[in-house]
């Protein structure tokens, strides 16, 4: 209940406040979105596994976003930004896939 409410509040805030994203941060936004999705899928899987922990969820989400953005930022400074962001997306994508597969096994028993 409160989870759905939180999600709705976040979407509404994002839609209506439309915070002005600084130009320096814009390149890292897609990576942050992928990292956030990874954290959400991990949380859902943990919930279905019965080992969910709210503190782990929030901390892992924040750290994922920050670390992913940091890696890409570092890559940009070194001139390999696009390669590193590809790497981050691949790793997070694999994790999202395996978590989604685990969720599917829980839900459909298959």
């Amino acid at each position: 209940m409160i989870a759905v409410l939180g999600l709705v509040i976040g979407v509404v805030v994002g839609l209506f406040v439309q915070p002005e994203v600084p130009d320096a941060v814009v390149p890292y936004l897609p990576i942050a979105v992928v990292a956030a999705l990874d954290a959400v899928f991990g949380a859902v899987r943990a919930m279905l596994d019965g080992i969910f922990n709210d503190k782990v969820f929030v901390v892992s989400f924040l750290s994922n976003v920050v670390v992913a953005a940091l890696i890409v930022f570092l890559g940009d400074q070194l001139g390999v930004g696009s390669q590193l962001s590809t790497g981050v997306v691949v790793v997070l994508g694999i994790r999202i896939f395996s978590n989604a597969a685990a969720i599917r096994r829980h839900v459909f028993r298959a």
Partner: protein
Amino acid sequence: MSLLTNVMDHGLDEGYAEAAAARGGARDSRIPRTARGLLTLGAGLALVGAVVTVGAVNARKAEPTLAKERDALIHRINDSNGSADRLQKQVQDLRRKVDDTQQQALPSGGGDAAGLAGAVGLGEVTGPGVKLVLEDAAGTGLGGNVDPRAGQGFSNSGRLRDRDLQLVVNGLWGAGAEAVSINGQRLTALSAIRAAGEAVLVDNRPLVPPYTVLAIGDGPKVLDAFEGEMAGSYLRLLQEKYGIKSTLSVQKSLTLPAAVGVTLRTAQPATPEPTPTPTSTAAPTATPTEASTATPGTPISPSASVSPSASAGGGSGSGRRTPSGAAKTTSAHSPTTASTGPSSAGTGAARP
């Protein structure tokens, strides 16, 4: 492989397992029960929702910006096209004005600059004639789009060369053509057909095959004469030996454009006069437009005036004012011709 297996096997954050172990292995914690836990979960999900939404909104916001830039570019292109059209129109107007002034500057009875312009290649001409299309042999791999670096060049004998084209054009002149153009390039007495690298150039402009040679003249007569003379048999030989295709046809009406970058100047050393004084005679008729007068008496023979000596003769017309120099000299000088500066135009304008 260990990296891949690591990524594949540890999809779930290890923090969850550790926290569960710390709680004593209880595997029933699905949703936090405490108010604080619920609040943390809600705040975390709100954050996730906000990040994802902001990302989506930002991605969509970039689209109109790109579209706007594209529109601006299109606008600039249209503007530039418009101004180019205006300038083109201005050029045409000015050219017409120059023609008019040239006509006015001619002394009465001095001649017809417009008619002369058509004859020497400086004016557009229309009339019946013949059309000759020359195409490189199939399989030379060039066709419409010449890539100078990819082709085998003229070592490939299936390609038409500059001297073939020279021969053909000379043949057309010889067959009675009055005006000739190649791929829209009007030939004047000063035109050069030559090769540079892999391309055939006419007046330093590269041509792209197929080569379309238009010649104005008495169509059937020119065709017969051309077929009968050396150039015609040369073309047949090219077709037989190398597969260079050529089609010659009579056309009812052809329009040949004017040559560009050539200034029309004529000179008329008229009545023989043994001791002329150039300075006094040059003054009255020298006109600001550099247009001077001439009566194009004898028909212009392009093959004769192609030679450098003919063009030099036009420049030094007043100097050769001997009784034998009564022959009317007509030539079109390109601005780049060394011997014809403004000064020589002045002497060319000299009339006794």
